């Protein structure tokens, strides 16, 4: 016990709560709004109500503690000492450095995900969702803390948003819901990019990925979706592959995680990073015109921070940019060619046994393939209309 207390005292006071921008009443207003939304969801019994209400309540409490420095400090040191205490207790208890809470968190998340997969009852799905969220939070709490209270809370929010909506995306029974949850996960990913200082990537993810690619997915779903919940969305390869796949995935995740956290101590084995200022002319590459020299990736307050990204893109990786443009053109032409070829190969009603690429000569081919170009399109238009 004395040893635990000594280790506790060592952990407390290592981090300070950072300064929170804005007036106190602004944060109180935001916290009141979030708690009010939680209360509304709880009382109205909206869809998925209790998880949403609990989540919003926790967020509201976290925002509330942001407003008061003393509360911030207390909660911060409390969580740090609690997780440290748990870690030390598990290590002492098992006489073996089982990585708590990372290992238990991953296991809880895996079990929750198995429960939440398709072909379950609604109660089991909700329980699985809650369990996997708890597992995720426990795993995140097991890593080394980022500097300060506000960065940590923001990072946890973004992480839970990204991974929670990704897990929801693969567990949904309707593919439209999957696409929407994936778009929400992309928003979380964009937030994570912004957190790292990759502003262009954050915006590009929202605009290109969530704004164009997911919308294209939804268009194709509109064209090809069966009515209601299809059977193959509900059962999904039977009941045995789901636990096996989830446990294999959890094992892979645990291996990847323990590789860079080194067990219970969460100390890194990583090599020291390279020197912070990569000089452009060091390896003989021509310096791009107009690009600022030597702006490091992590220096977010530099006014030409993103300009350096553009300089690198069009200076050092210029050929890759040209190739990417060519690839886009090839993909566009290829997609159109696939659709045209596919429509030409479709068996039309009444002429299924006849070859399609013979130019129209017979009298019985007037309606479907009079001319190879117009006739096929018309025939397929009629078919599409009848479908």
């Amino acid at each position: 016990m004395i040893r635990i207390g000594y280790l506790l005292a060592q952990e407390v006071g290592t981090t300070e709560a950072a300064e929170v921008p804005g007036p106190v009443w602004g944060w109180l207003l935001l916290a009141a709004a979030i708690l009010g939304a939680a209360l509304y969801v709880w009382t109205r019994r909206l869809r998925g109500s209790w998880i949403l209400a609990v989540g919003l309540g926790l967020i509201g409490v976290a925002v509330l503690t942001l407003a008061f420095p003393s509360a911030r400090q207390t909660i911060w040191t409390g969580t740090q000492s609690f997780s440290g205490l748990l870690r030390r207790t598990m290590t002492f208890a098992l006489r073996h450095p089982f990585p708590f809470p990372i290992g238990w968190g991953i296991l809880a998340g895996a079990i929750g995900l198995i429960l939440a997969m398709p072909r379950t009852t609604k109660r089991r799905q909700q329980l699985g969702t809650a369990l996997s969220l708890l597992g995720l939070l426990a795993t995140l709490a097991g890593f080394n803390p980022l500097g300060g209270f506000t960065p940590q809370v923001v990072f946890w929010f973004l992480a839970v948003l990204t991974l929670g909506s990704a897990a929801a995306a693969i567990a949904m029974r309707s593919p439209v819901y999957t696409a929407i949850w994936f778009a929400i996960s992309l928003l979380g990913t964009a937030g994570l990019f912004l957190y790292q200082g990759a502003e262009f990537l954050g915006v590009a993810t929202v605009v290109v990925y969530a704004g164009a690619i997911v919308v294209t997915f939804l268009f194709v779903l509109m064209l090809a979706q069966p009515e209601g919940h299809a059977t193959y969305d509900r059962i999904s390869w039977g009941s045995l592959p789901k636990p096996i796949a989830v446990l294999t995935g959890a094992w892979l995740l645990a291996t990847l995680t323990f590789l860079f956290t080194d067990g219970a101590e969460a100390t890194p084995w990583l090599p020291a990073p390279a020197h912070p200022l990569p000089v452009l002319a060091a390896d003989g590459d021509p310096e791009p015109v107009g690009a600022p020299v030597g702006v490091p990736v992590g220096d977010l307050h530099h006014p030409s921070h993103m300009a350096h990204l553009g300089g690198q893109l069009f200076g050092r990786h210029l050929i890759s940019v040209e190739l990417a443009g060519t690839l886009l053109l090839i993909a566009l032409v290829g997609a159109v060619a696939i659709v045209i070829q596919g429509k030409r190969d479709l068996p039309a009603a009444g002429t299924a046994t006849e070859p399609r690429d013979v130019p129209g000569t017979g009298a019985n081919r007037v309606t479907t393939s009079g001319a190879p170009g117009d006739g096929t399109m018309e025939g397929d238009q009629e078919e599409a209309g009848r479908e």
Partner: protein
Amino acid sequence: MNEIALLQNYLFIGAALFVLGMIGFIVRRNMIVMFLCAEMMLQGVSISLVAWGRYHQDWGGQMLVIFIITVAACEAAIALALILMLYQQNHSLDMVVWQDLREEGQTGYADRAVPEERDEDRVWPTLTPAGVEPEQDEQEKLHRSRV
């Protein structure tokens, strides 16, 4: 310590997104959902790349993510065209209808009894019924009390 902690957290999130995408790709049967899970795997890799770029102060991480986004857009276009054509062959987005492409010597997959969808699971969007005229006061129509 702060940079290392940032890297650790981000690598975990990247690995978790990748693993979730992999699980979804293996478990699901809808062709479009399988492709969405492949895109999720690409997002996980993107997060890891950005984290490593920040850690080593190298812009190459963000460069590669830009190209990943570009290539993902290309492959989404072509894959969705292919999926549309496959759908029009068999009128199903199921992967099982194409299981004749499997290797020789492997048994095919056959669905066992599929349970009926319960009423509590069927959720449809509700719209207010259109074309229902509200009841109107005859006196109000003849002598308007307000404009």
